[in-house]
Structures are given as structure tokens and as C-alpha cells.
């Protein structure tokens, strides 16, 4: 779902890369159909609950890209199967899901937020994005998906309430195990267990990373002067969830709150670029995009029904098989006199097994 990498193409040297010299070139291109983007829906005053989605949404706002955004809660409905996803016009590219790829694509469509950056600032962007991905992202994943209290009380609950049935029983748990596995791989420790030691290490890095960002930001409005760039999109995407989602174990949030300039910076971006989200109270029904929900609600319902019937049948069958196996094993392990009794109880279909 998220990508940890920073592909280098992402780094754009202002001098020679942008094919269109005009940063507002997109306004002169009314013929192109708006790009379609699929994102996790928002909550807690955020335009989306997911870091990658936030990054992409923020970049699109910064660059002024006119996206048609579907805020959905079922990743299976995205063209790539994960969120975010950008449906491009070109057949050869298809749909993109990695935030860096999406940003590159938007830039190719002349929506470039980094146009004004110097070469050195471009290098800094690359470096700070690496810093975020290496130091902050693991802790962010840990605090949302691995820390048991946070996961059970907030993350799983939100996803379980919002993802449609029956995926809501399946997906949160799957993401949970995927994220733990990813932490293991990234830390290079296959026996990694969530626990105090790991938390201490991850949080140490993350707190340091936030402090460094705060120091780098200083009293500026954005990281490179007065206009936002892609680095701001990445920083916003990583910090906003920490700031807005109230987690029971909120060490990272506390630290972020203590860094005034960084907190202010996130709030500003929310106010300036996502004014509608800020005003709305965290309601869970309004924010779904109408286009997204209308044409899909009917087949969706039927599919739900079919799925639920299948699910019920499957579980019954599974239970029957399971108990069948268990009782067979028990019978064999026991002396013979227990046998007829069991056979009587199990009835016909089990005898065939």
C-alpha cells in the first residue's frame, strides 16, 4: 500500500526537466479529461487517513492538478487493487499506485510544484524524503498498525467500520500482518517481535527525525520559501495523521505537539489547501464522494449479499470439516469402546469421511 522508496526520477532539476516552462501550464489545457484518483476517505479532519494518499492529494493541490478524486473505503475497487491509485490517460502506463510515480506522472502532465527549486534544493528534497522514509515511516507504521492498543482501539476499529462487509473482517488484519512483516524486512530482523525494545528504537529515530524537520523548517512557511513543493507534500503526508488521529499511545503525537512550528505548518496546510475538511466535524457519512458511491451502490449490495451467503456456507462447511477431523482423530487415539458412541453422534455425512 505504501511505498518506502524514493525513485530518483522524482528529483527534478528545475533548469532542464520541466518541458513546460510555465508552472501554471495546466490551465491552458482544457481538452484533457481530468485524471481520476482513488484514495482512502478522510476522517478526523484529514482529507484522507492514509499517508500515501495524503501525500499525493497534497501534491496535487500544491501543483494545482485538477483531479477527480474518489474517496473510497474499499481498496479492491481501485484499479491497481491498492490505494492511492491514479488512472492515467495513457494506456501504456495504465494506473499508478506509488506516490512517487504518481507525482512524476503529474509533473509530466505539467503540474509541477518543484519548478522553482534550485538544484541544491532538489538535492535537499531527495535527502529529506529519504529521512522521512527511513526514520519516520517505520515508527508511523508501528504506532498505527503494530502497537496493539492503538491498532485495536483506533486503527482496526476505523477500518472495520468503514470498509464494506465482508472485507472489513479480512483487510485490517491482513494489513496488520503485512505491515509487521514489512517492518521485519526493513529492519532486517526476521525474529522481530513488537515490544518495548522495538518501540524504543523506532520512536527514538522518529522523535529525532521530527526534531530535525522542525529545525530545518525554522520559521519558514514552507520548506523552500513561500510556496509548497513536493517535500512539503511528503512531510505533510507523514505528519498530518500523527497530528490529527488521536491514538491512546500517543508518544509521537505528544512530541509533534511540542514542536510548535511543525504543528503550525501542518495546520496551515490543512487550512489553506483542504479548507472543507477542516470545517467539517469528523463525520463518517458525508465525506464519501457522491460519484464514487452512486453508480456502485447497487451491484455492491448484491455482491455483498452473495458474498455473505458464500461466507456463511463456507464457514459452516469449514466447521463441519474441522469437527469431523477432530473427532476422527480422537476416536483413533482412544480405545475401541469410545467408538460407537461417537459414530452415533456424528451422523451420516461424517461417517463417510
Amino acid at each position: 500500500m505504501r511505498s518506502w522508496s524514493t525513485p530518483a526520477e522524482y528529483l527534478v532539476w528545475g533548469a532542464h526537466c520541466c518541458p513546460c516552462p510555465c508552472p501554471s501550464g495546466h490551465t491552458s489545457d482544457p481538452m484533457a479529461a481530468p485524471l481520476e484518483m482513488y484514495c482512502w476517505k478522510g476522517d478526523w479532519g484529514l482529507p484522507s487517513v492514509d499517508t500515501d494518499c495524503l501525500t499525493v492529494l497534497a501534491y496535487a493541490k500544491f501543483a494545482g492538478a485538477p483531479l477527480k478524486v474518489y474517496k473510497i473505503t474499499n481498496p479492491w475497487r481501485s484499479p491497481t487493487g491498492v490505494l492511492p491509485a491514479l488512472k492515467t490517460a495513457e494506456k501504456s502506463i495504465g494506473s499508478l499506485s506509488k506516490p512517487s510515480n504518481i507525482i512524476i506522472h503529474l509533473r509530466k502532465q505539467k503540474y509541477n510544484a518543484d519548478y522553482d527549486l534550485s538544484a541544491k534544493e532538489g538535492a535537499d528534497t531527495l535527502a529529506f524524503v529519504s529521512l522521512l522514509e527511513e526514520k519516520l515511516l517505520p515508527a508511523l507504521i508501528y504506532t498505527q498498525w503494530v502497537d496493539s492498543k492503538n491498532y485495536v482501539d483506533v486503527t482496526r476499529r476505523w477500518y472495520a467500520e468503514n470498509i464494506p462487509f465482508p472485507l472489513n473482517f479480512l483487510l485490517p488484519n491482513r494489513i496488520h500482518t503485512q505491515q509487521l512483516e514489512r517492518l521485519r524486512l526493513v529492519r532486517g530482523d526476521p525474529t522481530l517481535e513488537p515490544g518495548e525494545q522495538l518501540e524504543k528504537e523506532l520512536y527514538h529515530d522518529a522523535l529525532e527525525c521530527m526534531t530535525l524537520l522542525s529545525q530545518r523548517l525554522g520559521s519558514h512557511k514552507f520548506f523552500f520559501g513561500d510556496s509548497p513543493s513536493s517535500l512539503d507534500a511528503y512531510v505533510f503526508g507523514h505528519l498530518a495523521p500523527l497530528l490529527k488521529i488521536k491514538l491512546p499511545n500517543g508518544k509521537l503525537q505528544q512530541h509533534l505537539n511540542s514542536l510548535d512550528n511543525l504543528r503550525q505548518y501542518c495546520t496551515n496546510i490543512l487550512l489553506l489547501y483542504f479548507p472543507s475538511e477542516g470545517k467539517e466535524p469528523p463525520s463518517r457519512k458525508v465525506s464519501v464522494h457522491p460519484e464514487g458511491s452512486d453508480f456502485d451502490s447497487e451491484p455492491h449490495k448484491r455482491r455483498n449479499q452473495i458474498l455473505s451467503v458464500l461466507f456463511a456456507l463456507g464457514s459452516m462447511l469449514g466447521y463441519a470439516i474441522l469437527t469431523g477431523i477432530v473427532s476422527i482423530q480422537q476416536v483413533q487415539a482412544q480405545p475401541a469402546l469410545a467408538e460407537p458412541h461417537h459414530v452415533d453422534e456424528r451422523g451420516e455425512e461424517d461417517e463417510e469421511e
Partner: protein
Amino acid sequence: MGTVHARSLDPLPMRGPELGVHADDIETPDVEQETKQEVLENKDVIVQRVHIDGLGRTKEDYLTYEIADVFRAKNLIDVMKRAHKARQNLLRLGIFRQVEVVIDTSQGVDALPNGLDVTFEVTELRRMTGSYNTMVGNNEGSMVLGLKLPNVFGQAEKLTFQFSYGTKETSYGLSFFKPQPGHFERNFAVNLYKVTGQFPWSSLRETDRGVSTEFSFPLWKTNHTLKWEGVWRELGCLARTASFAVREESGHSLKSSLSHAMVIDTRNSTILPRRGALLKINQELAGYTGGDASFLKEDFEIQFNRRLFWDSVLSTSLWGGCLLPIGDKPTCIADRFYLGGPTSVRGFSMYSIGPQSEGDYLGGEMYWAGGVHLYTPLPFRPGKGGFGDLFRTHFFLNAGNLCNLNYGDGPQAHLRKLAECIRWSYGAGIVLRLGNIARLELNYCIPMGVQRGDRICDGVQFGAGIRFL
């Protein structure tokens, strides 16, 4: 008529030899059924036919070796004795749930007047038996699934599979066992396994994945086992605080070894023997068949038991061993010997004698340990003849030493090294026999000769063990 049921014997427990149950562990009651000794008693009889009823998958010709003896009987008592022996042989194969013997006078046209028919009515075990257990240990739970196929090909071959899925570790074992027809003790086994062990006294975790083949055979009064084993061993630290010496041993290695074990065991019971002696010699040669580890390991165990007054038993035992590295590679922590614990040198903590680094015991290349025990029944003998016989009180004196070899010095120096700084302890306690497999001990120990670095357990010590000094 003259039908005799030889069935009054206790049904033997359905255990194969893999549980280490010796035939002499099972105290065989004598054949004591009130036989209707009619005219047949002192007459010569001829066993005309032996039937085995109830066979399914088992190949009949395989069983003829086990029951052939019955034909040699000359009179009725002899028939019953031999039939009883044959029954035990059949049960020992581990493929029958039940065996009943029926002796009857011969019927039919060719029946001799003094002819007998012996019929074994057997019930075979199921083709496959399964078991399911859950185990909870310290900080870990696991689920054990077992699958056993006794008598896979009809000749008492056995295939067992055990899989344990734990919260921390998974392990499995698959083994195939095949006895030689007619000589059940001469058998061949192949094992495939993965096991994980945690050794907190060394801050060490070991995962072994291996293959082994074994060939066991009796020779005169001894039992021999020849074995080849190839193990991929993965050592790691149990905690971040593990000492550097243990860290240095971490990593992967491959051991391929040939070993030979010889056992003479004349004891009447393996756990609480009253008489008899045990001699066990084990030797292992690693490195010549591949792998990273090369060493020669010798190990022996001697035990004598003697019954004294009032049902008390005096038992003396001696262990010893040495490990010689071959080539210039030092020995591996996983191959070395460890000493100490509630069933070896009592009064010391588990494997906590000898060379250590920052509190992690590294084991030694040479050791000896000896013990003198006086076992007596419980005072006032509560539960005599039943539950109380599972218990014994004992008084003991244990001693031992463990050290590393230094190749500069000769063998004399080694012996001197083993003789100085001897750890010893004495005390008394209660022993509980757990089946025929293990025993529990609760002792009050007074350790003596403690050296720097040893971890002692002064006072009450509790422990369980299969092997004991």
C-alpha cells in the same frame, strides 16, 4: 473342552521400543491361570496348527518368525509358556492393539489324538492414528500434532510424524522405522527433523535441522547402534546481553558425524533400579564425512545397583567423557559437555559448572562425574504395593569436574586438572518415578568445592531428568 485362554495376563501397554521401554521393565507376572489340567497335563502334545486370526494389512509370513517357537512345545505347560512368549513378541511389534491366545485340541480329519491348535486372535491397530496436544511452557505455548502409521507396509514398519507449532518456534520430526523380519531388535531407522532449543545458562539458542540414519542390533549381551547424522546447526544469542564469547559462536555450521553406541543394561528398571548394572559407551567422529565440525567425542556411563537390607538399594555411578578437536578449529559450544543440575551434580544449577564468560557457561571438553546413592522406601511405607512404590527417599554424595583441554600439556596434566578443584555435594531427598521414562527429584543439597563462577543451588532443589547420576 480342553480350551485354555491365556488371556489373564495384563494387557501390555501399547508402546513400541521408541519409548525406551525395555522388555525387562515390565515385570512379567508368571503364567498363572488355573488351567483345566485334565489328562493332557503330563502327556506329550504336538502343536499341529497355529492360526492368526484378525490379520488385515499385516503380512502373515512376517509373523511366522515370531510364533515359530510354539511348534517346538512338547507338553501343555510348554505350549502355554511358548504361546505366552509369542504373544509378547507380537505385542512388542507395536502393530496390534490386542492379542489373545486360544489353545484347543485339534479338530478335523487329520487331527492327532494329542494334537493341539493354537490360535492367536489379534486386533490390528488402525492404519493411522493421530494425536493432538497443547503444551504450555515458560513464556511459550505450542500445539503438537502427531501422526503415526504403524505397520505401513505390513511388516511392522512404522512411520511417525510430529509437528509442533509454537508461539515462538515450530519444529517437526519425521521418522521411518523398519525392523528385520524375525529379529525385531535388529532394526533400521531414518529420521528427519528440525528442533529448536533454548539454553538460558549459555544465553544460546540452537536450531537444528538434520537427517540421521540408525542401525541397531544386538550382539551377545550388548546392544549396538550405528548412526550417521547430518545436522545444519544455527546458533544465535538468546538475548542482547549475551556475552561476547557466545556471540563469537553464533552462525551456521554443518556437522556430519558417525557415531557408535554400545549399551549393556542388566538393570530391572531404568528409573529406579533395584539390581543390575549399566554400561553405556558412546563415540562420535565428526568431520570425515563432510561438514564444518571435526572432532572425536568419547563418552561413557557406568552404574551398579545392589540390594541391601530392608528393600534399600545402593547405587553407584560414574560418567566421563572427552572431546578432541581434529584440526586447528576449536570445538563448538554446541558439542561440548555440560555438568551440574538436579539430576547430575546436585546442588549446582543446571549446567552451571566450569568455564564461563560474563555469566554464560561455555561447557568443557573433558569431564567426569560420580555419585553414590542409598535409596530406601519411604519411611513407614505409606501406599505400599501401590502408589507409594513410585517414591523413594535417597541419600547421595555427588562429585564431578569439567574443564577444557590444553594441548600443550600432556594427558597427565589433563588428569591433574580434572582432579583438582573437584565440585562435590551431598544431601537427601525424594525421588518420584514418572512412568518408565523419567523421574522427578526433590532434594536438599549442600554443595561443596564450589569454584569461582559456578552457580549453586544451596538448599532445596527440584528437577526432572531422564539421565541421572
